[in-house]
C-alpha cells in the first residue's frame, strides 16, 4: 500500500468535509429564504409573534391590542388618563344618529347590515364575488351608493362618526381574518399586502417593517414605534396631534406613515392600502377590538 494514500485520503476527507459544510450552510440559507418568501399567513403571524416576544418578553399577548401603550409605560399613563374622558365620545354619538337615520329612499345602514352594528370583526374580508378585499369603510360606502347616497370621504369627516359607532359597539369582538387558501386571488391580495409592508419606499428608503419590526420600541422624536401586531385593533382613532385633533381612519394613518418616509401616499381604500390592511389585520388575529382609540 502506498504510504501517501492515507494522507491523501485524509486531505480529501478534510476538503470534502469543508465542501459539505459550505453546501449545507448554502442549503440552510436557501431554505430559510424560500420558507420566509413562501410562508403562508399563519407562518407570517407566528413569525411576527416570535419576533415581538423575543423583543418584549414580559408583554402578554393580549396587551398588543393596546398598540404602543403595551410597551410604553409613560405613554400608557397619559393614555389611561385621556381614556377617562374619551375625546372620541361625541363621534360615537353622531355615528349612532347616522346609523339610525334613514337615507332619502327610506332605507338605511340597518338594511345593508342586518346583523349590525356589531360588525367590525367581520372586516376586512375577502369578497369572492367582487374579487377584492372588502373593508368596513368601503362596505359602508357601497351601501350608501346602492341607496342613492353620495359616498363619504375615506380619511376625514363623517365616515369617522359611523365607524366610531360601529367600532364602539364591536368592542370585545376578536379579530378573525381569514385568507381562503383555495382562492388564488385572495392569496395574491394577502401577498400583495405583505409585499407592500416589506417594500422600502420614499426618499427615506423605509419600509413599514423598518419602523414597526426592526425598530419597534425605539423612539422617532418623542414617539415609541409600535409593534404591527395590534395595529388594526383600535380604528378609527382620535389623535391629539395638531393636524388631526379629531378621529381619523386607518387609511388616513397609512397616508401619514407614507408621507413621513417621504413617499407619495396611495389612494385611501385603493387596492394597495386595502391589501395592506388585509395583511396587517391577519397579524392581529386573536386580539380584541377596542376602537375607537385615542392616541397622541
Amino acid at each position: 500500500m502506498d504510504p501517501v494514500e492515507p494522507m491523501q485520503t485524509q486531505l480529501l476527507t478534510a476538503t470534502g468535509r469543508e465542501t459539505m459544510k459550505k453546501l449545507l450552510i448554502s442549503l440552510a440559507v436557501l431554505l430559510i429564504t424560500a420558507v420566509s418568501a413562501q410562508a403562508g399567513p399563519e407562518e407570517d403571524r407566528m413569525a411576527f409573534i416570535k419576533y415581538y416576544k423575543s423583543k418584549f418578553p414580559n408583554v402578554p399577548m393580549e396587551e398588543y391590542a393596546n398598540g404602543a401603550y403595551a410597551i410604553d409605560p409613560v405613554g400608557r399613563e397619559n393614555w389611561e388618563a385621556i381614556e377617562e374622558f374619551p375625546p372620541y365620545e361625541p363621534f360615537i354619538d353622531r355615528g349612532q344618529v347616522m346609523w339610525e337615520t334613514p337615507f332619502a329612499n327610506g332605507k338605511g345602514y340597518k338594511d345593508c347590515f342586518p346583523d349590525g352594528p356589531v360588525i367590525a370583526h367581520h372586516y376586512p374580508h375577502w369578497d369572492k364575488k367582487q374579487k377584492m378585499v372588502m373593508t368596513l369603510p368601503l362596505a359602508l360606502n357601497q351601501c350608501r351608493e346602492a341607496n342613492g347616497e353620495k359616498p363619504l370621504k375615506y380619511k376625514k369627516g363623517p365616515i369617522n362618526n359611523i365607524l366610531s359607532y360601529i367600532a364602539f359597539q364591536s368592542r370585545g369582538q376578536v379579530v378573525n381574518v381569514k385568507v381562503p387558501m383555495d382562492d388564488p386571488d385572495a392569496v395574491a391580495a394577502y401577498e400583495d399586502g405583505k409585499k407592500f409592508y416589506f417594500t422600502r419606499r420614499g426618499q427615506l428608503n423605509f419600509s413599514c417593517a423598518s419602523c414597526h419590526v426592526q425598530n419597534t420600541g425605539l423612539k422617532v422624536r418623542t414617539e415609541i414605534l409600535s409593534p404591527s401586531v395590534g395595529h388594526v385593533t383600535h380604528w378609527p382613532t382620535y389623535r391629539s396631534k395638531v393636524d388631526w385633533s379629531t378621529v381619523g381612519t386607518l387609511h388616513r394613518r397609512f397616508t401619514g406613515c407614507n408621507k413621513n418616509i417621504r413617499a407619495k401616499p396611495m389612494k385611501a381604500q385603493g387596492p394597495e392600502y386595502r391589501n395592506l390592511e388585509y395583511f396587517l389585520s391577519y397579524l392581529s388575529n386573536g386580539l380584541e377590538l377596542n376602537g375607537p382609540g385615542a392616541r397622541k
Partner: protein
Amino acid sequence: MSLLDKHSIRQSENLERTMKSVQRWVAAAIVIGLMVGSTALLAGEMKVDAATASEAIAQAEAAQKKADSVNGEWRDTGKFIKNAKKAAEAGDYAKAIRLAKKAESEGNLGYQQAVSQSELKIPSYFKAMYQ
C-alpha cells in the same frame, strides 16, 4: 571647504531653484485650468431660458410618470414640478430648471428603488423567525 563641496552646494541650490520654478508653473497651470474649467462649467449651467426650463420640466414629468407606474413616486416630486412650472411662468428660469432637475432625479431614484424590489424581500433580521 573643498572645491568639490562648493560645487555640490551650488548644484543643490540650482536644483532647488529649478524645483521652485516648476512648482510655481504647475500651481499656475492648475489655477488657470480650474478657472477655465469652472468658467466652462458655469457657461454650461448658465443656459437659462424658457426653452431649457420647459425641456427640464418635461423630463421631470416623464421621470415622475415612470416612478408612478411602479408605485415608486416620492412625496415631493409633484410639488417640485408644480413649483418649477410656477417659477417658469414668473420668468425665474434658473429656479425652474433647478427644481425640475431635482424632481427628475427623484423620479429616476424612485423608479430604481421600486424596480430593485420587484420581488418580496424579507429582511435578514426577520428571516430567522420563520424557522
